[in-house]
């Protein structure tokens, strides 16, 4: 008979997988050990319960939705039709920007992280801004159809990178103060004057926000960039009571539409998690 409690063998015994001399030793110990008998009773019940686990099927509706998203995810990215002249001018533009950026890199970098050059715009909106407003209105009217739906910022970024070659800088994780407030919804591929762009749909405190982005080089008109800090162009559409923020950063132009308070600056925080940058953004409302 075993003198020590056969803890290691008791589960195999309960599962009926111990045989021969080992099973005999455990059985002899059990005759004299009420503690191990109680333990065996619990293990036998646990094993019987666990053996009753059954597979659970993915509900058909969810399966269809996921299947559809996966097929779109697996689709090859569409190729943009950029002519040779435009490509050359884009390259020349990019080279010029590079030279300027290299010349003042340290200063600009420092200023960009500590200042924002906010401008109020009253002229006609650009094609990207018009498209952003139109798509946002479709969302408000419930007629917008997304190509890819996901509540995960990571998935959205992966999908957008694969489909449009664009970097949607949505923060992958949210600070504690944002808990439950920021909700990614999905994305849709669009065209603006022949340029590929992507609309990113998300919600802040249940309010819809739409962010359009495209490669700045693909657009015919891009907002002026600020030399001293990131320049953000603010426009208020009185007729529809929508706020529009537009800027260019890292080679992409963005237009952000919402009807959030003040300038709608809260919507910028979907990408920003750095506390200092967030404080700067939150002060924008008082700047105009």
């Amino acid at each position: 008979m075993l003198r020590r409690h056969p803890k290691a063998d008791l589960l195999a015994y309960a599962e009926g997988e111990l045989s021969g001399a080992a099973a005999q030793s455990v059985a002899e110990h059990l005759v004299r050990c009420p503690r191990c008998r109680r333990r065996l009773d619990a293990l036998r019940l646990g094993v019987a319960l666990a053996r009753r686990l059954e597979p659970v099927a993915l509900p058909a509706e969810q399966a269809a939705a996921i299947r559809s998203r996966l097929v779109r995810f697996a689709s090859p990215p569409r190729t943009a039709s950029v002519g040779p002249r435009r490509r050359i001018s884009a390259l020349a533009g990019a080279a010029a920007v590079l030279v300027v950026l290299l010349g003042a890199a340290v200063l600009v970098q420092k200023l960009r992280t500590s200042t924002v050059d906010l401008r109020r715009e009253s002229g006609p909106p650009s094609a990207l801004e018009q498209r952003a407003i139109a798509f946002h209105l479709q969302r408000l009217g419930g007629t917008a159809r997304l190509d890819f739906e996901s509540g995960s910022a990571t998935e959205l970024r992966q999908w957008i990178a694969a489909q449009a070659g664009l970097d949607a800088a949505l923060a992958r994780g949210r600070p504690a103060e944002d808990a439950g407030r920021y909700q990614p919804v999905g994305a849709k591929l669009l065209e603006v004057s022949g340029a590929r762009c992507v609309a990113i749909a998300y919600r802040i405190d249940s309010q819809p926000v739409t962010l359009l982005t495209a490669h700045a080089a693909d657009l015919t008109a891009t907002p002026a960039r600020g030399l001293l800090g990131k320049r953000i162009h603010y426009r208020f559409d009185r007729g529809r009571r929508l706020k529009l923020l537009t800027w260019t950063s890292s080679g992409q132009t963005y237009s952000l539409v919402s009807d959030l308070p003040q300038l709608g600056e809260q919507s910028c925080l979907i990408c920003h998690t750095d506390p200092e940058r967030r404080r700067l953004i939150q002060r924008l409302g008082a700047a105009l």
Partner: protein
Amino acid sequence: MGGGTEPVTDAAPLETALLEGCRQRDRSAFAALFDAYRDRVYSLAVHLGGNERLAADVTQDVFMKLWTRIDQFRREATFSTWLHRIVVNTYLDHRRAEKRFIRPGPDGSAALPAAQARGVWDAEIPARVRAALGALSPKLRAPLVLRYLEELSYQEIADLLGVSPGTVASRLSRGHRQLAALLADLKPALRREV
């Protein structure tokens, strides 16, 4: 076993054809692979995570990873083993992300149904067990699910979870005892099996 989640019959040739199709970036093969394995992936995820919303997210992520990493699959391991690894790792990624950014709290959100005063329908038992699993810590839950739902050996579970087979046995024992304590009222219904 539920009808919709039976293993694919004659899996090897079909599996090989689907995986080869995915390697060739054939979307219809990818869709067929999803149809063949979606229930298995979801089932494992829902038992590991204890809630349906998380399981649906994990399922989608798993297939995205399958598509983007299909070239990393070599026939040195079975597809099942590779799939198990992706599901477990994806589930752990989601759990870590939720813990870090959303809210702390119990991992299992499935509420335990009230114990029946008398008599339990046999068909209720799996749902009761699944709900009780949600109340266990993820450390104890994962070995139980992999052992009894996926029928993996201690060694396979140990490899997947990155622990020793002895640790697997110890966690299984603790898991069984907690399960028994949570569902002691089911003992009469299981008297022939206990």
